[in-house]
C-alpha cells in the first residue's frame, strides 16, 4: 500500500509544480502563434496601403525597402476620386448591392417565416432544398445564366446583375433566418394569436423585431456577397460604365504594360472599403451571421 501511494503522491506534486509552467508555456505559444498569424494575415492589405501611398517613381525605385514609404502622398486617391469611370464603378456597385440586399431580405424573411412557422405541405422539402441550393456554386451556373440573361437582353447592364445575384444571397439568408425564427419560442406566436394578431402582424410586430440580430446578420451577409461578387459581373458586363467595383478595378485599372501600381492598390482598397467598414462597426453581427449557417443548421 505504502509503496503504491508514494510514487502517486510524487506524481501529483510533479504535475502540480509543472501545471503553472505548462500554462505559461501554453499562453506564450498561443500569443506567438497569434502574432505570427496576424502579421501574415495583415501583410497584404498593409502592403497594398503602403503602395497606394507611393508615387509611381517611388514604386519603380528599387533601391530601398518596398515595405516603407519615403514620401507618402494621397495623389493616387485624388486621381481615382476625380476619375469619372471609377465613380461610376462605385455607383454601379452601390445600386446593384442595395437593390439585391432589399430584394434578398424581403424574399428570405417572408420565406423563412412561412417555412419555419407556418408549416404547409412540402415546407420541409423546400427548406432542405434551400440548403442544397446554397451548396451550388456560382461558377456552375454562370454559363447558362449568361445565355438566359442574354436572352432577356440584360447583358452589359447592371440590372442584369440584380436579377442573378439573388442566387448568391437568397438561399443562405433564408437558411439562417429559418434558424433565427426557429429559436423564437412557440408560445410567443401563440400569445400573439390569442392577442388577435394575423400572420402579417405576427411577422411584422413580433418576429422581425425579435429576430432583428439575425436580420442584421443576414443583411450584412447579403451586402458583403453582392459587393464582392466577381464571376457574374466578369461574365456579363463588358462596358466599363456598367461595371461594379470588383471587376472594374481588376479589368479597367490594369492598362498597358507599365501598371500604375499605386493607383491600382488605391483603387482596390477603396473598393474593399464598404465591406471592411461594415465589418469594423458590426463585427459581432458579421460573425454571428458567418457561424449561423453551420451552427443553426
Amino acid at each position, binding site marked *: 500500500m505504502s509503496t503504491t501511494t508514494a510514487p502517486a503522491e510524487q506524481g501529483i506534486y510533479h504535475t502540480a509544480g509543472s501545471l503553472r509552467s505548462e500554462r505559461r508555456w501554453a499562453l506564450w*505559444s498561443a500569443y506567438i502563434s*497569434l502574432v505570427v498569424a496576424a502579421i501574415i*494575415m495583415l501583410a*497584404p*492589405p498593409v*502592403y*497594398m496601403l503602403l*503602395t497606394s501611398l507611393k508615387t509611381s517613381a517611388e*514604386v519603380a525605385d528599387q533601391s530601398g525597402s*518596398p*515595405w516603407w514609404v519615403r514620401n507618402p502622398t494621397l495623389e493616387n486617391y485624388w486621381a481615382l476620386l476625380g476619375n469619372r469611370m471609377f465613380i461610376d464603378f462605385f455607383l454601379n456597385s452601390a445600386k446593384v448591392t442595395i437593390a439585391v440586399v432589399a430584394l434578398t431580405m424581403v424574399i*428570405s424573411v*417572408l*420565406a423563412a*417565416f*412561412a417555412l419555419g412557422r407556418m408549416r*404547409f405541405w412540402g*415546407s420541409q422539402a423546400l427548406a432542405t*432544398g434551400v440548403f442544397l*441550393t446554397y*451548396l*451550388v*456554386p*456560382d*461558377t*456552375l451556373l*454562370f*454559363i*447558362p445564366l*449568361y*445565355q*438566359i440573361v442574354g436572352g432577356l437582353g440584360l447583358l452589359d447592364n447592371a440590372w442584369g446583375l440584380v436579377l*442573378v445575384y*439573388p*442566387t448568391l444571397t*437568397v438561399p443562405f439568408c433564408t437558411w439562417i433566418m429559418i434558424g433565427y425564427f426557429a429559436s423564437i419560442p412557440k408560445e410567443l406566436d401563440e400569445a400573439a394569436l390569442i392577442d388577435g394578431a394575423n*400572420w402579417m402582424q405576427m411577422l411584422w410586430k413580433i418576429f422581425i423585431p425579435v429576430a432583428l440580430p439575425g436580420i442584421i446578420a443576414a443583411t450584412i451577409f447579403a451586402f*458583403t456577397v453582392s*459587393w*464582392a461578387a*466577381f*464571376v457574374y459581373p*466578369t*461574365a456579363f458586363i463588358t462596358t466599363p460604365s456598367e461595371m461594379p467595383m*470588383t*471587376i472594374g478595378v*481588376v479589368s479597367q485599372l490594369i492598362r498597358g504594360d507599365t501598371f500604375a501600381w499605386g493607383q*491600382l492598390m488605391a483603387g*482596390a482598397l477603396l*473598393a*474593399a472599403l464598404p*465591406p*471592411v467598414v461594415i*465589418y469594423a462597426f458590426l*463585427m459581432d453581427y*458579421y*460573425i454571428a451571421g*458567418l*457561424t449561423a449557417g*453551420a451552427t443553426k443548421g
Partner: protein
Amino acid sequence: MADGASLAIPSTAAPASGSLKRFARRRSTIALIMTLPLIAVIGGLVVWPAGYAIHLATLNRRMTSFIGLGNFEILLESETFRMVIFQSVFFAITAVILKAAIGFWLAHMLHHIPANGQRKWRGMLLVPWVIPPALSTLGWWWMFEPTYSSINWLLNVFAIPSVPWLGEPWWARISVIIVNVWYGAPFFMIMYLAALKSVPEQLYEAAAIDGATSWQRLRYVTLPMMRNIISITVLFSLIVTFANYDIVRVLTNGGPRDLTHVFASYAFQVGILAGNIPRGAAVSLFMFPILAVIAFFVLRGVNRRNREEA
C-alpha cells in the same frame, strides 16, 4: 343554458362554421404565397439554369445541333482539360487541408488566451475574409510581381534566393494555394472558435478529473463535439474552393501556358472568352457530380450524428 347555446349557434357560430379548418387552409395558402418569391429564385435561377446547362452541353459550338456527349468526349481527350482536372483536385484538397489545419490551430490558440483579448485578435485575424477576394488577390499579385516582389525582397533579406512565383507552373500553383489559404483560413478559425465555445466547460473539467491529458481532452472531448461543425465547414470550403474563380483569374489567369486553370476559370475561358458556350457548360458541369458526391457523404454523416445525439 342549453337553449341559450342552441339560440346562439345560428347567430354567431354559423357564419364562422368550419372557419378553423378554413383558417388552417388559409394559413397554407398565405404560406405558399410568402414562399413563392423564394421558389421563383430557386426554380428560375438555380434549377432551371442547371437543367439548361445540361441541355447546352449537348449542343455543338454554334448551338444548332445535338451532339450528345461529344463535348465531354473532346474535353476528356484534351491534355489541357486533364490538367484542369488534376489542378482543380490538387488545389481544392491541398488548400482545404491547409485551411482546416491552420484554422483549427488558430482557433485553439485564440480559445486559450484570456477572454477579454480574444475579440481584438479575432477582429484582426478575420480581415482577409472580409476583403472581397478579387481585390485582395490584386495585392498578392503585386507582391508576387517578378521585378518588384516584396516577398522576394524579404526572402533576400534572409539570404533566400528569389522565387519565380507566377512564372513557373509549380510555383504558380503554390501561389494560388497560398492566397486561397490566406483568404480562407480565418473562416475556419471563426467556425471552430464558435464550436469550441459551445463545448460545455464542465465536460473538460470532468475529463480532467477522469485523468485525461490535454491531448486526450482534445482527442476525446473537443474533436467529437466539433465533428459536425468541422464536416460542414469542410464541405462548404471544399465546394467553394473547388469552384473558385476569383483568385485564379486575377493571379495567373490560367497561365503559365494554361497550366494553372481550374474548372471555373477554364469554363470561363472556353465558354465566355472563346465563345464556345456548350463546351464551357460541359466544363463546369464536370464539377457537379464531384460536388454532389462530397455533399452527399458529408451531409449523411452530419444527419446520422444529429439523430444519434438528439
